[in-house]
């Protein structure tokens, strides 16, 4: 059997391997050029001789942290810094949720008659999203002075970009049926909103708000680096004064707080859906 099969020579010419298109190679070449440009432009010098030493010191600091810093009876300590960070992210998220709801309805294609209206809303939201929150914080510091309030305002405004887009998506996925039913009962525009639209989108809105809150807690930890309150400020001080034990405890504090927040928020979000 095998022999016979071997003897009938396969006509391999009949099934030809399809040629890869030329433009593929063009893409590969372009990619290669971009990478050569990117890697050759980096200055590989300038690493401090003490880098290894400092790295060890920081790792050592994490494993033997400055426990005393967790709570100091008078003044700035870890718990107060973390509390401040949480407060900034909570209030910032709340403000952005309030602001972004009208923008979400503006940007949702099924809520406006013309594509221009929703398109301009989407443009506006993507513009806000692109504007870095740290830069916003710098601008707000100029307005209300350094401190947590500037951080709250920066997060509150910056989050509108992403939340507004997510909310708009949620509005676009809405079931038109109940809206039609409410129109048929003779309801006014606001009544239609309140009885047919809001109950449908509310769980989604809440879930996205929590998701954004998780992101905002992370952002709030770094706002202090530019003077907008939270745990970032003592961290920067500890780093510049080479107090590695303190850097260690602050890092631990941030990691623990964010892990706990993620767990709580995640479990609530699962319940909402």
């Amino acid at each position: 059997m095998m022999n016979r099969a071997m003897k009938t020579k396969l006509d391999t010419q009949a099934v030809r391997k399809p040629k890869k298109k030329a433009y593929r190679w063009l893409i590969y070449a372009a990619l290669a050029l971009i990478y050569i440009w990117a890697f050759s432009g980096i200055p590989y010098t300038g690493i401090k001789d003490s880098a290894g030493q400092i790295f060890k010191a920081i790792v050592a600091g994490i494993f033997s942290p400055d426990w005393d810093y967790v709570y100091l009876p008078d003044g700035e300590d870890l718990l107060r810094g973390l509390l401040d960070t949480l407060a900034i992210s909570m209030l910032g998220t709340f403000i952005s949720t309030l602001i972004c709801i009208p923008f979400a309805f503006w940007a949702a294609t099924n809520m406006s008659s013309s594509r221009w209206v929703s398109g301009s809303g989407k443009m506006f939201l993507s513009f806000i999203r692109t504007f870095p929150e740290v830069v916003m914080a710098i601008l707000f510091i100029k307005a209300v002075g350094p401190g947590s309030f500037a951080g709250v305002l920066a997060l509150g405004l910056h989050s509108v970009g992403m939340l507004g887009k997510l909310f708009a998506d949620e509005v676009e996925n809405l079931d038109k049926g109940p809206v039609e039913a409410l129109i048929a009962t003779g309801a006014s525009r606001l009544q239609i909103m309140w009885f047919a639209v809001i109950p449908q989108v509310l769980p989604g809105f809440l879930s996205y708000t929590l998701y954004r809150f998780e992101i905002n807690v992370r952002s709030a930890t770094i706002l202090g680096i530019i003077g907008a309150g939270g745990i970032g400020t003592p961290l920067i001080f500890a780093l510049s004064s080479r107090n590695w034990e303190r850097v260690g405890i602050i890092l631990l504090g941030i990691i623990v707080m964010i892990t706990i927040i993620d767990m709580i928020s995640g479990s609530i979000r699962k319940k909402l859906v």
Partner: protein
Amino acid sequence: MNAKPTVQVNDRPKAPNRLKHILTAVILLLLLWGSAVQTESSLGELASGLPNMLDLLREMFPPRWTYFNNIVEAMLETIRMALVGTTLGAIAAIPVALLCASNLTRTGWIYYPVRFLLNLVRTIPDLLLAALFVAIFGLGPLPGIFALAVFSMGLIAKLTYEALETIDHGPLEAMTAAGANSLQRIIFAVIPQIQAHFASYVLYTFEINVRAAAILGLVGAGGIGHYYEVTLGFLEYDKTCVIIIFTLAIVLLIDYMSMKLREKLL
């Protein structure tokens, strides 16, 4: 509606207790109120600060377009940092993602600890990583690249392992049946299923990294962010405005190209 006698109130089912909702609302309000106190937020302060901010915005215009020439090189460095950081992170993410996927790494004592470590790494924001790396390595783009690489590794590894866990098991079984070892199984049964997703996640991370790289300079980690401090320090807001506009343009352009590429991939 009068054909039948009215339903007696007692016959109706009982309304569920609303205490839970009310309690949730009260707690939420208390938290927000506490936050406002803690952060010393007040509408009055915002109102009184608003004129300052409008002044600032007014000083930003017209932008000093000539400043553009001073920051082109820094912007190119920003893009380079994002590109190199994303690439290094993507390479590092591959083994991590494979170890995290419960359907490929069958042993729980491997994938649980690896996932735990991955989650720990993902809690640290990129700017904070950059501040740490600057303290370790000194000023310059290198610590920025490392920060972006670590951050990208976390994000790409997470997205990829979640995608890995949803792959079709048929091809894997077929490879096992054909007597393949684990590396061969990955090359012939896993990679073909995942490569488009992986590429799309890398592009997505690259978009995020361009935005991140633009501000890393604030902590001394290279890129255009450094110039915010320079111009704001000298109160040259018209120059700051040029930086902001330039960054927005580059970010939107890269987002657009990346989005088009991702659409083609999936």
